[in-house]
């Protein structure tokens, strides 16, 4: 099976590998997949509670080259985006960017799920009085 150039590039030089320090504020973590399925992605997003913008992202992935490339690409994709916009990212964007073959589409689905899981996790840690809700209204 031949890999696309972009998959190889992300696999060889993955962006934003790592984890935020334990207990760091404003970090949402999404862990999706399962070891027995051969794919586990951990995506962490550092989100500004003032305006709901994703300021930084880090990932760690256990999985094939396409899974690593999908998560690497996603960290670049979400940076600077508002969380509501990030929530609308579809896996097809990842498939297109990385030229994933049909057998690897599940990698992109997992990456999409990871974004949603990380944002949901972050939201669950915010107090209802968080500033993000009114800001969101302003922006839209």
């Amino acid at each position, binding site marked *: 099976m031949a*890999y696309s150039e972009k998959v190889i590039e992300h696999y060889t030089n993955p962006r934003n*590998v790592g*984890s935020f320090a334990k207990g760091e504020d404003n970090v949402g973590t999404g862990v*999706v*997949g*399962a*070891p027995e399925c*051969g794919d586990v992605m951990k995506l962490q997003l550092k989100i500004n509670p003032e305006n709901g913008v994703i300021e930084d992202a880090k990932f760690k992935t256990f999985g*094939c080259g396409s899974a690593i490339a999908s998560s690497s690409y996603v960290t670049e994709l979400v940076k600077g985006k508002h969380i509501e916009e990030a929530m609308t990212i579809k896996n097809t964007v990842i498939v297109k960017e990385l030229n994933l073959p049909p057998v690897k589409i599940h990698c992109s689905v997992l990456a999409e799920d990871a974004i949603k899981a990380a944002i949901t996790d972050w939201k669950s840690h915010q107090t209802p009085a968080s500033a993000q809700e009114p800001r969101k209204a302003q922006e839209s």
Partner: protein
Amino acid sequence: MVKLPIYMDNHATTPVDPRVLDAMLPYFSQKFGNAASRNHSFGWEAEEAVDKARNQIASVINAKSKEIIFTSGATESDNLAIKGVVEFYKDKGNHIITCVTEHKAVLDSCRTLERNGKATVTYLPVDKYGMVDPDAVRAAITDKTVLITLMYANNEIGTIHPVPAIGRIAKEKGVVFHCDAVQAVGKIPVDVDRDGIDLLSMSAHKIYGPKGVGAIYVRSKGPRVRITPQMDGGGHERGMRSGTLNVTGIVGLGKACEIAQAEMAEETRRTLDLRNKLQAGIFERLDEVYLNGHPTERLPGNLNVSFAYVEGESLLMGISDIAVSSGSACTSATLEPSYVIRALGIDEELAHSSIRFGLGRFNTEDEVGFVTDRVTKEVQRLREMSPLYEMAREGVDLKSVQWKTE
């Protein structure tokens, strides 16, 4: 410096030995006769070459030359043995005994017979080393059993089954014993009499011969074993396999057997030494590496290991200048990890992390050193990227985690 890429996948196939190629070359355009042409020198020349090859092949498994039937390869030999026996002995019974880690050519032949209502099949389990228990074979035999089909050595994990013990049971119970010996012939001593084998499948391209040619041994005496042909035609190979003989291929198979037999002791010593160096290097430099297969009863060239927390296909991608194979789901069309590794009862995650190194005649010590370095470095890099490795180091029990899957 080593020359890249490095080929270390010798269970999948092997390069043709230059000595084998030299033996074959005249039979393409000079001595091109049909071995079945009885009336001219072209035919006689071809027949003579085939006879010589038959002797060379018989010799490596201690058979008689007339007991060797040529086929297109081991897949055909397995199909012919299994379907041929079931069809021929249908009045005697319809039960087959095999095991879960057999090659697909055996398993799928059995499944086809099951599906068509021609046979019932017992699939024996294996122990944690991938070995079948001869007592389980004995216990599975019924008065309807017509065939035991078990491999000599496994193609993924290299485990060598207790074939002589199984052969004795088959003899004692009067059941035909077919052995897929593709990975064993020419690598370790195989003796159809000592091992009690009635039918044996072998292939040229696993022993430095050409692709597309193989053979099946069919016992002629004590007892005489019969099979119903699966290919109709000119009645070649004593009626068991019609079709003009692939003379060049057969010459290659014969020469490959001759070399393998003459050099087996030396080659085993050398291959084993390389394998042990590779294994020691990897195990010394990495933690949480697990050997798949039997620690001692294993093919000399086989090393199958699971690198915990690293997915096999991503590792293959990282060492793309080294040709090895993985039991990872991602390398198969089915998205299921290797059924052989899973049959060992190890964690699914470790099945995804398995890599098979297949050392062979042309691998060198420098290559082993290079592979050890590359694999070690890549595993370390991927572990730094692995959330599972991070969790394990933090003391999280991965089995207690509720994974989010859809």
